[in-house]
C-alpha cells in the first residue's frame, strides 16, 4: 500500500507512545520488585533479591497459585466443550431462538463483573450450594464460554463446507468426519481461544470474590489481600512480575497458532 514515509513515521511514533504507555506501569512494578524498601514508593532505594527469595518460599502465594491454576483449567475445559457445541449448532442450523442464544452467551462478558458476581452469589445461596472450587469453576466457565464460542464461530465461517462434504462422500460417518477432518481444522482456534479464556479466568477478581466462598483464595484474591498490607507489598510485585514473564510464552504460542492459517483451512482467504 502506498503510504508516504511521513504517514508511516507518524503511525510508528504513535504506536511507540502507546506501547510506552502500556508498559511503563509494568516496568515500574518489575523495578519495584527489586526495591530494598518495602513500600510501593518511588524512586527505588536499592537493589535486592530479598523479595524474590521470600516469594519463592511463600506458602500463601503457592496455594493461591494452585487454586487459580485449577480454576482456570476447569473453567477452560468446560468452556471448550460448551463453546464448541454451541458454535457447531449456531453455525450449522438456523433455529428459533438462535439470536437469543447468541445474546445469552455474550451477556456474561458484556455485563459488568459485579452484576454477574452478585447474581451468581444470590443464586447459589438460594439453591443452597456451598461455595467452593466447584462454584468458582462454574462461575468462571460461564464467562469463558463466549471466548471459545466466538473464536470457533469465526473459524467455522472461514472454513469451506466442502471439506466435510468430501469426507462424507468418501464414506466417513459423522463422528469420523469430526475426528479426522473438522477437529484438526479447529485445533488452533481451540488452543488460541482456550489460552485467552485461561488468561481471563486466571486474572479475574470480581466474580471470584462473590463465588469463591470464605476459605478459597485465588491468586488475584491473595494479591488483593496482601497489597493492603505494607510489608507484603514487594512480594506481590514479585508474583506479578513472575506471572507476566511466564505469560509471554502462551501469548506467543497463541499468536503463532492463529496467524499461521494458510491453505490448510480450505477457505478462500
Amino acid at each position, binding site marked *: 500500500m502506498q503510504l508516504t514515509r511521513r504517514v508511516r513515521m507518524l*503511525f510508528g511514533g504513535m504506536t511507540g507512545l502507546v506501547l510506552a504507555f502500556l508498559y511503563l506501569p*509494568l516496568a515500574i512494578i518489575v523495578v519495584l520488585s527489586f526495591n530494598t524498601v518495602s513500600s510501593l514508593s518511588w524512586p527505588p532505594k536499592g537493589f535486592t533479591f530479598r523479595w524474590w527469595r521470600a516469594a519463592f518460599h511463600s506458602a500463601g502465594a503457592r496455594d493461591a497459585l494452585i487454586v487459580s491454576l485449577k480454576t482456570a483449567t476447569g473453567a477452560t475445559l468446560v468452556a471448550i466443550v460448551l463453546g464448541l*457445541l454451541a458454535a457447531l449448532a449456531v453455525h450449522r442450523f438456523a433455529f428459533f431462538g438462535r439470536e437469543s442464544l447468541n445474546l445469552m452467551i455474550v*451477556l456474561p462478558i458484556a455485563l459488568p463483573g459485579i452484576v454477574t458476581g*452478585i*447474581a451468581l452469589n444470590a443464586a447459589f445461596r438460594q439453591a443452597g450450594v456451598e461455595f467452593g472450587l466447584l462454584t468458582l469453576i462454574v462461575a468462571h466457565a460461564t464467562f469463558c464460554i*463466549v471466548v471459545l464460542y466466538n473464536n470457533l464461530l469465526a473459524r467455522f465461517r472461514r472454513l469451506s463446507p466442502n471439506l466435510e462434504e468430501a469426507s462424507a462422500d468418501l464414506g466417513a460417518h459423522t463422528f469420523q468426519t469430526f475426528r479426522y477432518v473438522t477437529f484438526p481444522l479447529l485445533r488452533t482456534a481451540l488452543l488460541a481461544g482456550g489460552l485467552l479464556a485461561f488468561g481471563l479466568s486466571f486474572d479475574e477478581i470480581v466474580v471470584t470474590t462473590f463465588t469463591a466462598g470464605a476459605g478459597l483464595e485465588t491468586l488475584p484474591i491473595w494479591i*488483593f489481600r496482601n497489597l493492603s498490607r505494607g510489608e507484603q507489598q514487594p512480594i506481590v*510485585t514479585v508474583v506479578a512480575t513472575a506471572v507476566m514473564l511466564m505469560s509471554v510464552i502462551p501469548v506467543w504460542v497463541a499468536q503463532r497458532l492463529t496467524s499461521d492459517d494458510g491453505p490448510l483451512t480450505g477457505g478462500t482467504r
Partner: protein
Amino acid sequence: MTATTLPSSPGQSASRWLHRHPRARLISLIGAPAAWMLVLYVGSLASLFLTSLYRLNDAGSGIDKVIGAQNYRTLIDKSVYLDIAARTIKIAVLVTLLDIVLALPIAFFIAKIVGARWRRLLVAAVLVPLWASYLVKAFSWRAIIGSPGGVLDKTFGASPNYGEAGLIIVLAYLWLPYMIVPIYSGLERLPDSLLDASSDLGAHFGFTFRKVVLPLLFPSIVAGSVFTFSLSLGDYIAVDLVGGKTQVIGSVVYDNFSADLPFAAAFAVVPVIVMVAYILGIRRTGALENL
C-alpha cells in the same frame, strides 16, 4: 449377486440415525450450552432482579420476601443515586472514547504498515499486558499518579492525583488491549486492495482513512466499546484505589452488598439495563460478530 449388508459400527448407525433426525442433531448440540446459560446465568439474573424487589426486614434481621418497588423508588427519588449513575455513564463514555483514540493508530500500524514478523511481535506485545494482574496495574498507577510523592509528581512536578481525571486515565489504560484486539482483527479483514483503490482514485491518506477505513471499522470499534463500556460501568476496585472520593455504581453496590442486598441488587440492575439496551442497539451494526 445377493446384496449383503456389511455390519455397521455403532458410529455408523448413530450417524445414520442422526442424519434422518436433524432436530435430534440440533438438540444434542445445543442442549448442554443452552441449558447451562439459561439455568445458571439467565436464572441467576432473574433471581437478582427478584431480590431487588424485596426489602430489608424492619427488625433488621434479614430480608422480607415481599415484592415491592421501594428500592427503585429510592433510586429515583434520591438525586444522589441518579448523579452517581450519570457520573458512572459519563466516565464509561470518556474511557471508551479515549481508548478508541489510543487504539486506532497502533492497530492500524500493526495491521497495515509493518511486515509479518514485526506484526507477530507487536500483537504479542499488546497482549502480554493483559496477563499482568489487574490489581497490580491499578496499584502501580496509584504509585504513579499519587501526589505528593508519586512517579509523575517526582518526574514532572505535577500529577492529577486521585480523582475522576486520574480514574479515567487508569481505566482507559486497563481496558486498552480489549479495544486494540477487535480493531486489529477488523483491520486484518480489511482488504488492502480497497486502500490501494482509494489512493488510485486520487484520495490522500487522511481522506482514505476517514471515508474508507473508519466506516468499515465501525463494527469492530463498537465491539471494543462493549468491553470498555461494561468494564467501566461495573468497576469498583480501581475506583477505590485511584478514584479518591469518586463514587460510582460499583462502589455503591459493593458497599451495600452485605448490609442491604435488595438495594444493592436494585442498583446493580441499572448497568444491566444500560448494557442490554446498548447491545440490542448495536446488533444491527454487526458488532456482535466481532466480539
